């Protein structure tokens, strides 16, 4: 009966006082690992801050190291535990914590876009609810993630590369032009020499030569024109793409505002269509959970946060009671 047959996370889960809390901890750690520009210490502190009410009763260190190794089995196990044991309110609060952890400074990394959506699917949170929750917490709408598999993404995120590429192309074109001119000069010099040498043969041949040169020049100028035309088209296309992008962004940034009742319901963790008794029951539960007196023994800061939350819940409840 050696302990080696259980993986580190399984051992942690078996020793934990509350399996859901440990599993949630791992999932939040997974989200945190995908935050960019955050140091390890900050991550750990943040996790401890968010999960101060958890009753797991073990260290955070091992959880973070498992999250860092991105052990798929551990994450799957955590997801299964969370799905099995989370009630509706609990899953909303987990979602709430995940969003907080993913977006402290407002922006959310691409990987976390997908992880949050995975968690939402796992916890059975509808897209509309996730959107309103996100809006409530960050003050920004939840946009669809950007797509780094497209050229357009890199044109906005790495303009330096494109500038360099354009510069290189211009240089190459210039060099080509210079070499062409040189070749032409050589040709002309040679032709002149030939002309001098064979001065006597000539009327006809000279005419022919002239014709040929004229034609070559015409061809070259037309080629130059074509190149200029192409460059212009390229520029026009890029311009158009950029305009389209900005238009799309504008459209995205002004979705229909969620109506106040829906928002109030989301604050209470309900979906549209809940009855008055549901609202009352949800309010009682949320008020019990978030009442500032519960946090009396914790820090001043916690009490202040709780009273802000409580105020919001109460406002939502008052509003719903008036309208229902």
């Amino acid at each position: 009966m050696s302990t080696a047959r259980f993986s580190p996370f399984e051992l942690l889960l078996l020793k934990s006082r509350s399996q859901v809390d440990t599993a949630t901890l791992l999932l939040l750690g997974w989200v945190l690992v995908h935050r960019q520009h955050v140091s390890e210490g900050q991550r750990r502190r943040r996790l401890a801050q968010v999960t101060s009410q958890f009753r797991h009763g073990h260290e955070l260190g091992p959880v973070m190291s498992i999250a860092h190794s991105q052990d798929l089995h551990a994450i799957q196990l955590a997801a299964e535990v969370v799905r099995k044991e989370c009630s509706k309110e609990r899953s909303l609060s987990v979602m709430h914590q995940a969003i907080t952890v993913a977006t402290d400074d407002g922006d959310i990394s691409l990987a976390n876009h997908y992880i949050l959506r995975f968690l939402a699917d796992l916890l059975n949170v509808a897209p509309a609810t996730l959107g309103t929750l996100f809006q409530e917490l960050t003050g920004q709408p939840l946009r669809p993630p950007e797509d780094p598999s497209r050229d357009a993404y890199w044109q906005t995120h790495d303009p330096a590369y494109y500038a360099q590429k354009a510069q290189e192309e211009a240089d190459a074109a210039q060099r080509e032009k210079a070499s062409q001119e040189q070749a032409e000069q050589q040709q002309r010099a040679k032709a002149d020499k030939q002309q001098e040498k064979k001065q006597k043969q000539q009327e006809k041949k000279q005419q022919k030569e002239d014709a040929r040169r004229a034609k070559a020049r015409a061809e070259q100028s037309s080629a130059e024109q074509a190149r200029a035309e192409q460059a212009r088209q390229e520029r026009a296309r890029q311009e158009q793409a950029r305009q389209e992008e900005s238009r799309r962004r504008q459209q995205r940034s002004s979705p229909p505002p969620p109506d106040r009742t829906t928002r109030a319901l989301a604050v209470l963790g309900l979906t549209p269509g809940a009855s008055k008794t549901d609202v009352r029951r949800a309010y009682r539960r949320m008020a019990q959970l978030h009442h500032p007196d519960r946090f009396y023994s914790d820090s001043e800061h916690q009490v202040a946060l709780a009273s802000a939350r409580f105020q919001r819940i109460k406002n939502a409840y008052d509003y719903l009671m008036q309208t229902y």
Partner: protein
Amino acid sequence: MRDLYQRLALTPDANNQQIKSALARCPNSALRQDATSVLAVAPHRETYDTLHHTLSDIGRLRARLGLTHGAHWQGDVANDFSLPPDNAISRHDELVDRVSHAVSLYNRWRRLRGPWLLIAVFTVGAGIGLALGFALSLGLGLG
């Protein structure tokens, strides 16, 4: 986010040579342009690969948890990163099984410990007695 490797029939660990030849073979010019600016530029490819790895993980997780048709899993990502669902193993059930197995082994050990200890003590005692008797008889024989 699309899986460019899949669309170019490559593996994610393809080297630059393979990528170049796949790009040359690619018939879709839009895809070729995107893939050129993503995969052929080292820093871009690095960023892309990180996200690609995470998304493959999520795709695998979704397949195992039966979430391949979730409301949040749609569009290009769902098309490219979904795997056929396999309900073969639920890690939680497996863990519960293993724990109960371990517990039953432990219980059996607890139950059988008494008789086994008795037998062991008896065997050791008998062995010591035999050895002593043998030594004594040898000593007598010699003396």
